[in-house]
């Protein structure tokens, strides 16, 4: 008879959908080239310059540009599984969290106020429109099954990906495999009179059931990619 199939372990190795996604990318010429390009730019440390003590450890602008090119030019069938793979364990989730090289693209030496971050984004034409897209397509909607506007998971994922490489680059906040939390690199502490507005803005990332459901359902293969 057929051997029993374990869903998590095949051929003695634990299944790691994020590793499978990396394999699929490495076997495709365009995906491999553009992934290698952003990885090497984002992981390159900049030598310390005398006289600028608060210098970022990498070339953030170049890294973010390479990330945008990756997500713009690589077909979503290859790029989304790297970012939204479903994970059985922490090693996998850590790989998923590191997809965008967060030490360079997401984190900064200084953690700005979230409204300050939003202001920076709004002063840039592309970032402003991407952020508006995200608020529109990933807005939690109580009267739909998925929690997304028109149950359109794909629209939300596309808008989320659109923010990667912008001033408001979101990412997974830890390597928890199933309890997915996303956030921006900012805080609302000491936000003064606007603290509530600040919290509300950041909650659209940290407590967004539409976005979380969209990621979970992509990882489990129940949803395809973006609508053409």
């Amino acid at each position, binding site marked *: 008879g057929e051997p029993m199939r374990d869903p998590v372990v095949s051929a003695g190795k634990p299944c790691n959908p994020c590793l499978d996604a990396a394999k699929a990318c490495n076997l495709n010429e365009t995906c491999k080239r553009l992934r290698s390009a952003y990885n090497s730019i984002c*992981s390159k440390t900049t030598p310390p310059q005398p006289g600028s003590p608060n210098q970022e450890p990498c070339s953030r602008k170049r890294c973010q540009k390479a990330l945008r090119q990756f997500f713009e030019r690589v077909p979503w069938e290859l790029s989304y599984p790297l970012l939204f793979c479903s994970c059985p364990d922490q*090693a996998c989730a850590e790989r998923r969290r590191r997809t965008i090289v967060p030490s360079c693209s997401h984190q900064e030496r200084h953690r700005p106020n979230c409204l300050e971050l939003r202001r920076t984004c709004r002063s840039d034409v592309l970032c402003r429109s991407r952020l508006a897209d995200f608020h529109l397509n990933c807005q939690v909607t109580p009267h739909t099954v998925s929690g997304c506007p028109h149950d359109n998971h794909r629209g939300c994922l596309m808008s989320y990906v659109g923010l990667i490489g912008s001033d408001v680059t979101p990412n997974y906040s830890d390597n928890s495999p199933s309890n997915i939390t996303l956030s921006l690199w900012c805080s609302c502490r000491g936000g003064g009179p606007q603290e509530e507005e600040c919290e509300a803005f950041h909650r659209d990332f940290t407590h967004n059931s539409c976005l979380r459901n969209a990621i979970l359902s992509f990882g489990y293969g129940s949803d395809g990619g973006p609508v053409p």
Partner: protein
Amino acid sequence: KRARRPKPCSVRELELTVSELGLGYESDETVLLRYCSGKCTAHRHNYDMTMEHMMRTGFRKKGRKDKVSNGPCCRPTAFEKDFSFLDNNSRYHTIQNVSAKNCGCV
């Protein structure tokens, strides 16, 4: 029995994990290794024929003990661009000149 025609020098492909490359990196990421293999018999020049002769008798007659290769080798003439991967300790690495882009008899 007819002699088998030797396969000419060309690029071959093999899927490997980065760990299997033998460069000291531990990563389960899969990479497509392109390498050069095949015969170069059709690419022998007068140089190669002279060297074959010199190896047999020529050098000894002239009092030399030199060793030379007496035929072209199937080798990469160009390498693929940089390749980046995440290792099993969650660090990114970029490696160069691992995979052949083109092969030639040189």
